[in-house]
């Protein structure tokens, strides 16, 4: 039975629960906007990385360069789009 529950994945699950709990501090504690956003950004991106590496096995084949390039490129452009849009439409500089 225990072979069905590999240590790495169990640890990954526990870690993701911990990260969720950490993110919840912004709800239960009275943090400033900047601190709260920092907490959320850190927990969300670490959480995503855990999924990617532990559960999705992104780096296990010869294609890992292509896979990581694809993800990094996508995330970079996603961030550019989100922050660019905010810069143009909301922040007004």
């Amino acid at each position, binding site marked *: 039975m225990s072979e069905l529950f590999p240590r790495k994945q169990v640890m990954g*699950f526990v870690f993701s629960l911990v990260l*969720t709990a950490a993110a919840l501090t912004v709800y239960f504690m009275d943090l400033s906007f900047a601190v*709260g956003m920092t907490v959320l950004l850190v927990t969300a991106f670490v959480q995503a990385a855990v*999924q990617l590496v532990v*559960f*999705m096995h992104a780096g296990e084949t010869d294609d890992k360069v292509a*896979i990581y390039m694809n993800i990094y490129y996508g995330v970079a452009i996603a961030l550019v789009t989100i922050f660019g849009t905010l810069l143009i439409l909301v922040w007004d500089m």
Partner: protein
Amino acid sequence: MKIDNTLPLEYSTEQNRMNVLGFWIFLGAEVMLFATLFATYFTLAHRTGNGPSGAEIFEIAPVLIETFLLLTSSFTIGLGVHAMRLGRKNAMIAFFAVTLLLGLAFLGVEIYEFTHYVHIGAGLQTSAFTAILLTTLGTHGAHVTLGLFWGLFIILQVKKRGLTPETANKSFIFSLYWHFLDVVWIFIFSFVYLKGMM
């Protein structure tokens, strides 16, 4: 098709390896799809017109339940793929089934949440904010719904055809999809709900 026995079943043929990479590339496109929704959400988040704001309608309890369900389902499908690599067909089917049940429960809570929003006057047509909120959640929810059917088909196929290079490949790709939906949910949880309630 040449089968390479040194690799796990899901990678054992050239076509299988292409399918996996192709799906990763598709996920890259999905990143942009949801990023666009997020960009729109952040732009419209405070444009509530005559409707309610996020802080007024969000409730922590259903959101926490949804998050826990989806995180757990992501864990169980990971175990499912692990069981598949051990060649344990029944254990794998069991884990996949648990995953789908958790997904179904998630969807149930989300449907409750939607009816609740509409009930308290935060419908699709209320304001730009409610429209993008429901569209973002709805796009994720539609992905989960599609995943439920897809996962069911895969369970049926594994049951009938056993663990072959083809079914293993499909199962693995499905697990990638499911994990990705979990990642998207984490961002929705953090930047829609928690940020809105902060």
